[in-house]
């Protein structure tokens, strides 16, 4: 058991998981997901918000089964390896707010860290600004960590608490089965569907769900985290998680070459804009929020699956944040940042700095 347990947490384990995600993410694009968006936790949470009608941006409405699979796959892995630990109570409202602003920042750039890597691997040069911004935001966050930033302790709680996000996701899946997509119809029962745009582009439900389950399972085992990758590199000069992130990038690049999905340039990149400064600053906000919340959007889903109720709240914050982001014109589009994109970045940065400065304990 111990040997199996440690396998995915080794250097080669995390690299293997990065390769696995790189292969499947690019294949998902071939199987129907939007270009350079095989897997994007921010975009997919946003699409889920759209499917639920929390925002009415018609081009980004789809109940992404990958997200459902991530949480469920992680829960299965956690139970299989006796790691399911229901816990909660570490500044829940702060987690929620951080999730919301992480999403708002990510939607100024148009992607989570996973998609930033996939965009770069697909030849989108604008992603360089996003990744640089992400690293900058994380670097700011490490200064808070060094000066005693903490959201306090979570405590063990009822198993049902640890199950709540998984049950919510199963509820979403049920809705999707009860109200399946009707071709060229924007609505099926209570769910919204996109008839054009990124939300209309998706792999078959079963394929998306299975990939989600597999990635969720492996990511729970390996603790794959793109924010942690950069954080540990900056804070401890440690390359463990970073090697997984690099493996994802390199693998996706090679896969894109093989699949004919590599198109280098800055202009007219899929679901992307060319405003470098705002790509940078949007991801600065997101990176700082991820760090203060303890994980990238993917990692929050995996933590929620293994019973972390605070991570679950971060996820719900992201979904609600996506609603605000589109309703308030803060999200970007391929033509550039939204009318309130600048205000979103300024507010997001202010909120994150407020949290970072005010939630520090003197070193024990």
């Amino acid at each position, binding site marked *: 058991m111990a040997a199996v347990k440690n396998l995915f947490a080794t250097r080669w384990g995390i690299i293997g998981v990065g390769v696995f995600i790189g292969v499947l993410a690019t294949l998902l694009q071939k199987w129907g997901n939007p270009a350079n968006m095989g897997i994007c936790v921010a975009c997919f949470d946003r699409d889920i918000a759209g499917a639920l009608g929390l925002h009415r941006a018609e081009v980004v409405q789809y109940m992404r089964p990958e997200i459902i699979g991530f949480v469920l796959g992680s829960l299965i892995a956690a139970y299989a390896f006796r790691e399911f*630990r229901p816990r909660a*109570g570490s500044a829940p409202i702060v987690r929620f707010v951080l999730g919301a602003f992480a999403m708002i920042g990510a939607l100024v750039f148009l992607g989570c860290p996973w998609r930033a890597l996939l965009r770069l691997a697909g030849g989108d040069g604008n992603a360089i600004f996003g990744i640089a911004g992400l690293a900058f935001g994380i670097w700011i966050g490490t200064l808070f960590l060094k000066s005693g930033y903490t959201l306090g302790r979570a405590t063990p709680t009822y198993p049902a608490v640890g199950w709540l996000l998984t049950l919510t996701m199963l509820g979403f899946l049920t809705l999707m089965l009860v109200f399946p997509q009707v071709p060229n119809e924007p609505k099926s029962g209570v769910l919204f569907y996109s008839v054009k745009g990124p939300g209309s582009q998706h792999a078959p439900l079963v394929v998306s769900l299975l990939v989600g389950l597999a990635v969720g399972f492996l990511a729970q085992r390996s603790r794959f985290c793109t924010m942690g990758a950069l954080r540990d590199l900056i804070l401890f000069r440690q390359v463990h998680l970073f090697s997984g992130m690099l493996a994802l990038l390199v693998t996706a690049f090679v896969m894109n070459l093989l699949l004919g999905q590599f198109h280098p340039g800055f202009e007219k990149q899929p679901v992307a804009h060319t405003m470098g400064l705002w790509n940078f600053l949007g991801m600065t906000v997101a990176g700082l929020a991820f760090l203060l919340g*303890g994980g990238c959007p993917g990692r929050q889903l995996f933590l929620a699956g293994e019973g972390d109720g605070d991570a679950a709240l971060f996820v719900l914050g992201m979904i609600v944040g996506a609603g605000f982001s589109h309703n308030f014109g803060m999200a970007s589009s391929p033509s550039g940042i939204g009318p309130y994109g600048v205000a979103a970045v300024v507010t997001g940065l202010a909120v994150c700095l407020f949290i970072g400065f005010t939630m520090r304990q003197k070193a024990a």
Partner: protein
Amino acid sequence: MALVDARGLSCPQPVLLALGEMKKLGTGSLEILVDTDTSVENVTRAAESQGWNVKDVRPEGVGYRMIVEKA
């Protein structure tokens, strides 16, 4: 023996606390309480990078009690 209680704390605080204490001690023994397998792995990795050896990891409550040493 010096003790770090990192139970319930988010990443990377268990590692930060453990490394801080190791730095303060220089050598000797240190007990670390954590509540997840992830923290056991992370603290192990960090300790070994600083030349400390993980002598024991024992289940305790819902988590683990780790003992690390450096001669």
